[in-house]
């Protein structure tokens, strides 16, 4: 039975002698596969936002006689909002570092801070939405406002979902410790949270900065 495996030309055992490029090692481990799949999901989310950006760009001037961008947006408020979100991303990174060191107390503290900063962001956004609706500039007013509320609101919905996820993660870490599958989920969460930052930077630029140009 041994003749075949000794025949290098037929090469029926894989000793790495052949250069087959990527994929020669066989299936990747879960610690590669899970974040990779999640990263693909985040990419599909980016496509989702690009469609919302396209809608906004199409409709931004269709204000139907109602208020326009420069009448509605305030740079100061949005600046505070942006800083809160960006710092929360940094803190989320700290939580990841402490989680890798299996430091329960500091991981939980940093995650709480991440969540609180997320809440600050969300609070400012809701305040902004509330003020606009009170001024009669709600999403039903014009196509421009429909697309604005949908784009920014969709990001806000993602932050809300992220906060729900964050709470669940904190409970899981507390109850189950730093097990490999919990760590993979934490990594996915941080990828998600950072991705929200990237999208916010685009919203900040395209909606608020350009919208308040003199």
């Amino acid at each position, binding site marked *: *039975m041994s003749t075949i495996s000794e025949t290098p030309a037929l090469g029926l055992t894989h000793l790495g002698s052949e250069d087959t490029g990527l*994929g020669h090692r066989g299936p990747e481990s879960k610690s590669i596969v899970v974040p990779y799949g999640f990263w693909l999901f985040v990419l599909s989310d980016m496509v989702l936002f690009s469609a919302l950006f396209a809608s906004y760009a199409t*409709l931004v001037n269709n204000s139907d006689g109602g208020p326009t961008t420069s009448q509605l947006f305030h740079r100061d408020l949005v600046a505070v909002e942006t800083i809160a979100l960006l710092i929360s991303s940094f803190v989320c990174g700290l939580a990841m570092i402490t989680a890798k060191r299996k430091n329960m107390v500091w991981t939980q503290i940093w995650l709480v801070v991440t969540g609180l900063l997320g809440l600050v962001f969300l609070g400012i956004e809701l305040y902004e939405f509330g003020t606009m609706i009170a001024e009669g500039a709600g999403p039903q007013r*014009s196509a421009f406002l429909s697309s604005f509320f949908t784009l920014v609101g969709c990001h806000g919905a993602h932050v809300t979902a992220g906060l729900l996820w964050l709470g669940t993660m904190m409970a899981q870490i507390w109850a189950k410790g730093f097990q490999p599958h919990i760590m993979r989920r934490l990594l996915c969460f941080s990828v998600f949270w950072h991705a929200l930052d990237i999208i916010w930077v685009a919203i900040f630029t395209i909606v608020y900065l350009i919208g308040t140009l003199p």
Partner: protein
Amino acid sequence: MFGRLTWGAIPFHEPIPLITSIVIILALGAVGIWITRKGWWPYLWNEYITSTDHKKIGVMYIVLALVMLVRGFADAIMMRAQQSLAIGASQGYLPPEHYNQIFSAHGTIMIFFVAMPFVIGFMNFVVPLQLGVRDVAFPTMNNVSFWLSASGALLINLSLFIGEFARTGWLAFPPLSEKAFSPGVGVDYYLVALQISGVGTVLTAVNFVTTILKTRAPGMSYLRMPVFCWTALASNLIMLAAFPVLTVVLAELMLDRYLGFHFFTNDGGGNSMLYMNLIWVWGHPEVYILVLPAFGIYSEVAATFSGKPLFGYRSMVFATMAICIISYMVWLHHFFTMGAGGDINAVFGIASMIIGIPTGVKIYNWLFTMYGGRVRFTVPVYYLIGFMLTFVVGGLTGVLLAIPPVDFVVHNSLFLVAHFHQVIIGGVVFALMAGYTYWFPKAFGFTLDERLGKAVFWCWFIGFHLAFMPLYVLGFWGATRRMQHISDPSWAPWLNVAFVGAAIIGLGIVLTVVQLLYSIKTRDQRRDITGDPWDGRTLEWLTLSPPPHYNFAVLPDVHGEEAYWTRKQTAIKQDQLIDEPDYQPIEMPVNTPTGVIVAFFAALCGFAVIWYIWWLAILGLIGAFAIFVWYAWRDENEHIIPVEEVRANARERRRIRMEHLHNLSQST
């Protein structure tokens, strides 16, 4: 309490939907009683409904597709009957609002709930086997994806019994689909069903791109992957990028309808052209999502039954990826006539024609694979040849339509209807039927009856041409699509021929069922003991038919482009298998009811949203979130198959294969 839902929603006063409803409810009840009396529920629950096995999930997808094919075909034959009856003075048997629901449902069902689940079913069943691995990257999510698709299908079918379906065509264009013009629940059924199944599709795309890029057998480099895996990869990449756009555009329409937003309305600054652009940014790539895996199936069939490696493997891969990219640059040809201007029309017209080039490359590759080969004229090869004849003509009419001035003349005519049916039936449906015949023995351990299979092929082939060639003619004469009544009596003969064609396709569908039942009845004579009934070339034929849950006792070691063929030829030449490997215990994911429960809540929530029953919608959302957290909380996600079991199964398998290969080596 029950929102818009009243007794008036049930079609007591409309005989056609009422009788259909009663018959379907009785049939479902009968099947339910039959399963209960046979005591099959535990088997169905454990082996299929909660299964995380990609093969079982693939089978469920294909069953869903076949059931919905019957529904979609019923709509088709009703339309053809109406059009050949309602000519001149006669008004036919369908009132206009019912006819409009039927053509909308036909298109929606055939694309979303027949073609998509059929294609995804094959990808599920075949891709992990061909890659030489044990399952997809995320087995539980795979089960969730399936059940979300099934929920969407359930809601679409529910619209037949409770309420109505959209009368807006299969893409629900605004402003017709806006609240002002379609106040009923029909468009809401459409939107909710597609949103739910669309989530499932995005998850599928994540799953398969990860599976193909990150989990392959040792030695399976990119340029050693079977072509079907390449086409599945391309298809899933398109899904990943296209379906979120569909989600957005449908969500925007929902916001318009539910909350009074102004994305696409006539007032408030809305722009319905935005909808056209976004829906076709999804919609045209969707065509390639369907047809690329079909090309993959033809490639496998051509190579296997010609007894030759696929001609021009690398050019096939290149053509596949070229189509994957160009598919994003053609969407605007869907509204050449809407005033985009000459330059833009020219750019998109040229892009639409260029995509024909890689497709043409593929046709030559299949032809040259067969040329000089020892072709066995089995059922899949019939479909392959039928496809090449039909699809080339469909492709040519497509190039014709890609010329903007020609499109100005024939847009929205029956010419267009004939064109897209020609590429979808001749391209996708033929491939699905070929794949069904080709992989059936792998899934169930016995082959399908060849004579009945050929009869089914001829029904599809002849029926298709009779049904759609007249539509090309009528299209040139100015017959538009979606007509409930025909005022020109001179069109009658052509419409009658088209009806006969549809009836012949119907006979083919009936014969498919007959073929299945007959093959099951005579399965003992048609067992596939070797696991390799067609003398195949790719890894799925290495293992048993049906394969064990874990597919392979050890992951196959891949050398060269045709992983299994090389191995088989070596073994035949040497009259022995490779050394018995060192078997290890195998870790496999456990079954889980997560998918079916999440889908139940999704369907519940969807139904509530359609009928404005808000408390139920919130309850559905909370339920879905709770089951999600419950699933995340478990620790036991895998079970171990002991090494003794693996070894015993593998030894038995080796004995059978050895015997088979020994016979082969004696005969050559």
